[in-house]
């Protein structure tokens, strides 16, 4: 029997639960850490970014209204499906990040566990960040965290899966929706993650994933008036680009998560609450007490 020829995957965008090519018709070559060709990825355009924001906004009301228990179950389901495709992710991470198989697999394992960690937070974060407030008067007064809305995420450029999961899960666990620009040179795990999300009960549009250039797409997302928050982790801290994006984000008072100074953070460390609270607004409700 002659040697069988592999079927290569076409890597596309993920917008509103569908897998379109870029409307611009552009693609770019993705190589492994040694510079060998891996695949052609879709190169998202400004129009794709805007379509993704529309999809994320459309998905927001239902996702934010979903029970926290339900959101937690869906995040856990993502972990289950990721586990089932562990070897595929490990191969993509190994190729893109130039890691030995064992370390790539460790990255995947940590990514799965990160979904589980956040899944568990869904119905607890309100108890930790919310409060009953003892006001000086006959009022019942309580505060609850509520999702910010649509969040643009410029994903980390190095850690193509664990970093990605670590910045996307905290957005959606609290009820916000996301438009993600994947690591430009290492986008393949992000596209495969999109395939996992598409089959995981996560409603269409809650996470939208674009492949392409953060430098090209970032300015449009930072200035977009229907985006409520932006994570700038995919651009270099202290760079002119970072400053420019911060400035654009002021146009509609976006919540800005700045890129960390220095190297990318150690994504293996326990995340803490900061990324979740960055996309949560405190809402305080008053009601008089009386008979």
């Amino acid at each position, binding site marked *: 029997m002659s040697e069988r020829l592999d079927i290569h995957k076409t890597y596309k965008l993920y917008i509103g639960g569908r897998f379109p090519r870029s409307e611009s018709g552009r693609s770019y070559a993705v190589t492994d850490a040694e510079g060998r060709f891996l695949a052609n990825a879709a190169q998202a355009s400004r129009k794709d970014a805007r379509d993704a924001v529309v999809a994320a906004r459309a998905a927001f009301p239902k996702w934010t209204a979903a029970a926290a228990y339900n959101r937690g179950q869906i995040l856990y389901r993502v972990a289950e499906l990721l586990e089932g495709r562990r070897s595929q992710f490990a191969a993509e991470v190994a190729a893109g990040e130039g890691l030995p198989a064992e370390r790539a697999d460790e990255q995947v394992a940590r990514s799965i566990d990160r979904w589980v960690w956040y899944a568990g937070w869904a119905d607890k974060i309100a108890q930790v960040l919310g409060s009953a407030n003892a006001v000086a008067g006959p009022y019942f007064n309580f505060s609850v965290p509520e999702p910010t809305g649509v969040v643009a995420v410029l994903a980390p450029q190095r850690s193509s899966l664990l970093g990605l999961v670590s910045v996307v899960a905290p957005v959606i666990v609290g009820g916000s929706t996301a438009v993600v620009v994947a690591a430009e040179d290492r986008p393949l795990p992000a596209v495969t993650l999109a395939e996992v999300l598409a089959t995981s009960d996560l409603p269409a549009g809650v996470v939208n994933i674009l492949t392409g250039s953060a430098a090209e797409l970032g300015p449009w997302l930072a200035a977009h008036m229907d985006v409520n928050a932006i994570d700038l982790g995919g651009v270099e801290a202290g760079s002119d680009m970072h400053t420019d994006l911060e400035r654009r984000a002021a146009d509609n008072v976006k919540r800005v998560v700045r890129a960390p100074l220095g190297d990318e953070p150690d994504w293996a460390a326990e995340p803490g609450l900061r990324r979740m609270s960055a996309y949560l*607004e405190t809402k305080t409700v008053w009601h008089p007490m009386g008979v």
Partner: protein
Amino acid sequence: MSTWDYAPAPESRSVARLRTSYGMFVGGEFGDSQSGSFKTVNPATEEVLAEVAEAGPADVDRAVAVAGRAQQRVWGPMPPAERGKYLFRIARMVQERARELAVLESLDNGKPIRESRDVDIPLVAAHFFYYAGWADKLAYAGVGPDPRPLGVAGQVIPWNFPLLMAAWKLAPALATGNTCVLKPAETTPLTALVLAEICQQAGLPAGVVNVLPGAGDTGRAVVTHPGVHKVAFTGSTEVGKEIARALAGTGKKLTLELGGKAANIVFDDAPVDQAVEGIVNGIFFNQGHVCCAGSRLLVQESIAEELLDKLKLRLATLRLGDPLDKNTDIGAINSAAQLAKIRELSDVGDAEGAQRWSPPCELPEHGYWFPPTLFTGVSQAHRIAREEIFGPVLSVLTFRTPDEAVAKANNTPYGLSAGVWTDKGSRILWMAQRLRAGVVWANTFNRFDPASPFGGFKESGFGREGGRQGLEAYLDV
């Protein structure tokens, strides 16, 4: 039937201990500025109250430098419990001088003495009391295992609640171990300077609190100063955006409390008399100079006529006049510029086809005044339904279904507050969940408390003031 008129009941102006000139407060001492001075005016009479030092760039440099030293050498290293005791002391001294502060506030701002006496000043003391207790309990605040102060806080505050905003800014910043450079608004600098004197009398170490009076240029110099690590601003959305742009790339932590265009929603089962009081309190409290004012009344169509009749009857009983008179409900507009803005937007309301109504109301001859006003026949597209007027002007819109009420209430770039009036508990919670606003008042409006987090969604800003949540703005966590 005989008419019983109100007799004037003015609060004594001498209580304010008004001086002819006020210096700026830097490094624990009052002093003049090289950059000159400006006049602050009583908006109810247009008389000049005092000459106030105007801080220039050199003064900002000096204040930031002493604040930085005080933070590193004294206030930061101080045992937190001791820091807290200073704040308790300040709270007590505010209470002791409450009457003086209330009269001075009404003179400088134009707000009725009833409000400065019963709302502003008691809340100032309460804020210091509340955050005083947090100083040595930060590890329990749930913001992180090792919360640390940020350094020097540059704080710019508005003229609508001059001393209260100073307290909202200073109390949490000091409790968390930061030192402060505070810039009060140019039309209302006086009470912040008396608070500085209280800090001095309380023995607060020099440089921990610095108060720099001035206008926009002074504020810009404070927030952009490289020695300032944290910026907190309360004011217009426009200036808030400017500050956010100016701070891009600096790494400074920023919190913004900006404008609003709150919907006050009245359902057909609401207790109407209480709702009328809530509407009045929502938009005419402090002449409507309130970022969270209920400036859009959304009333269910079936009761609109009845509610408006009652509302108009109630408005006719509001007493407008001398802010120092204890009977006064509506005081003076804070400045000529603000009055011009209110007039302009109200004229736009006329021009766009809404119907203006005000009760018969005699305006004093001098000073800046605007009668309580409501517009009916307002559509969502009208500027008076979209833009913050920041005055005693209510836009009335109607709705039929709860879904429509939510859609209209949320149809704004702002998201600071909202009101809901209904007798149905489940509907209150359903509405509260859907309203995209940082504060939801149900069957009440415009309530404030230091334990209650305050701040906006969307373009109304980010970060919270008040409560445990208010600590995070001043901590590196």
